[in-house]
């Protein structure tokens, strides 16, 4: 167990010292392959009908798999992605429930993944303070079955994701950073409250509510407040 703890400790301090996304990616690939995982993906996990592709932070999937996944519109059927959006704890792909033996699309996703050499899969969910889910997911043919290995991978995945995000890799496709007040205003708007009512509830001026709502709309790439709410709910920035 000590040997596993040291591997984790070394990996985490190495991540700290790396200054480019590519270095972190290469280091992560080396570490994961030492546990038997030959492929991995770091991504935000949006709610369908949003598509996965714009939310991917780092793509280390086997050649051809991402293209096939995208072309066949697998994301909305992928049982691993669905399970990830409901999970806090890491899980094996094999633990994910989906109807088997019924020619479902979910089963097709898993079978084709297997054809691409992704036999044993493991996923570490990362739940951000906005409530938005991200994850590090990985797969290989034959993996380290020691329970300590899973715990090392759990920790390393979280630190790798943090480092990649800190190095700005996620900027282009990162879910918008809304402030807590902006989120609250959108939540109340979603609940049907007017600016005046929200101002009363939050004990701030109506003009402030309007200003913040417009700013949130801008951040969410929306033309008005209603559309901002729709986008925010889809992207899980607010809960109703």
């Amino acid at each position, binding site marked *: *167990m000590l040997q596993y703890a040291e591997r984790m400790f070394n990996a985490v301090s190495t991540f700290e010292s790396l200054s480019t996304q590519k270095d972190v990616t290469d280091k992560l690939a080396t570490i994961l392959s030492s546990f038997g995982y030959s492929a991995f993906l770091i991504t935000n996990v949006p709610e369908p009908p949003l598509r996965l592709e714009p939310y991917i932070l780092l793509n280390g999937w086997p050649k051809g798999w991402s293209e096939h996944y995208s072309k066949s519109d697998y994301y909305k059927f992928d049982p691993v992605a669905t399970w990830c959006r409901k999970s806090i704890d890491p899980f094996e792909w094999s633990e994910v429930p989906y109807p088997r033996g019924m020619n479902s699309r979910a089963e097709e996703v898993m079978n084709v993944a297997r054809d691409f050499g992704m036999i044993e899969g493991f996923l570490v969910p990362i739940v951000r303070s906005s409530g938005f889910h991200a994850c590090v997911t990985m797969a290989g043919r034959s993996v380290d079955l020691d329970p300590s290995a899973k715990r090392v991978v759990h920790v390393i995945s979280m630190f790798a994701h943090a480092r990649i995000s*800190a190095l700005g890799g996620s900027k282009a496709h990162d879910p918008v950073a809304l402030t807590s007040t902006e989120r609250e205003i959108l939540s109340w708007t979603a609940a049907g409250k007017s600016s005046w009512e929200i101002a009363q509830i939050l004990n701030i001026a109506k003009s402030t509510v309007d200003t913040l709502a417009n700013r949130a709309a801008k951040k969410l790439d929306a033309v008005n407040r209603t559309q901002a709410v729709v986008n925010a709910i889809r992207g899980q920035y607010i809960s109703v």
Partner: protein
Amino acid sequence: MIHIITSRNRGFYKPELDQHFRLRHDIYVVERKWRDLAKPDRLERDQFDNDDAIYLLAIDGRTVVGGSRLVPSTKPHLLSEVFPHLAQCGVPRAPSVYEWTRVHVAKDRREGRNRGRVLDSIFCGILEYCLAEGISSMTALVEMWWLPHFHEMGWTLRPLGLPELIEGEWSIAIELQVDERTLASTRTMFGIAKSTIVDTKIEQPTIHRVLA
């Protein structure tokens, strides 16, 4: 606002400390079902709630709405006495290292208009206090789902061992570095511009107050 309570001023804070222990009972024993901590007086106190403990309480008016506790790492603390097996890389012990435990927010302050606010002020307050007191890092035992939140605030973390299941939650011992940069990034994240710690002046010796 955050009030700092140490052995020097706790006489002034008896009602608030009682509220604090009752709130901890409601959260840790009733809500989280950590039955081992249950006491007949419904006050959650353990062996580390002694004269060395420093409390950072979030108090709104006269109501304690959240808080957390610091214990010197040079004295017996949770990680050294109860969970040393979670620190396979060793338990850091030094005068400038404190253990941070029992970070909590009252249930009715976690939702609605005050969502996040209490926790934000606790995060800023703890960093501010540590910087002022020369505490350079804190050790903590946290559920794994805290890690992304610390990372988002720009905190530097060092795992001290492998995670283990505690009360059904994957938990890990970590060391959190305290520096000006961390306080700055945390304040920026929450839009907090100034100190969240109340300057009570209670710690001044009585004679100063009389002269003033």
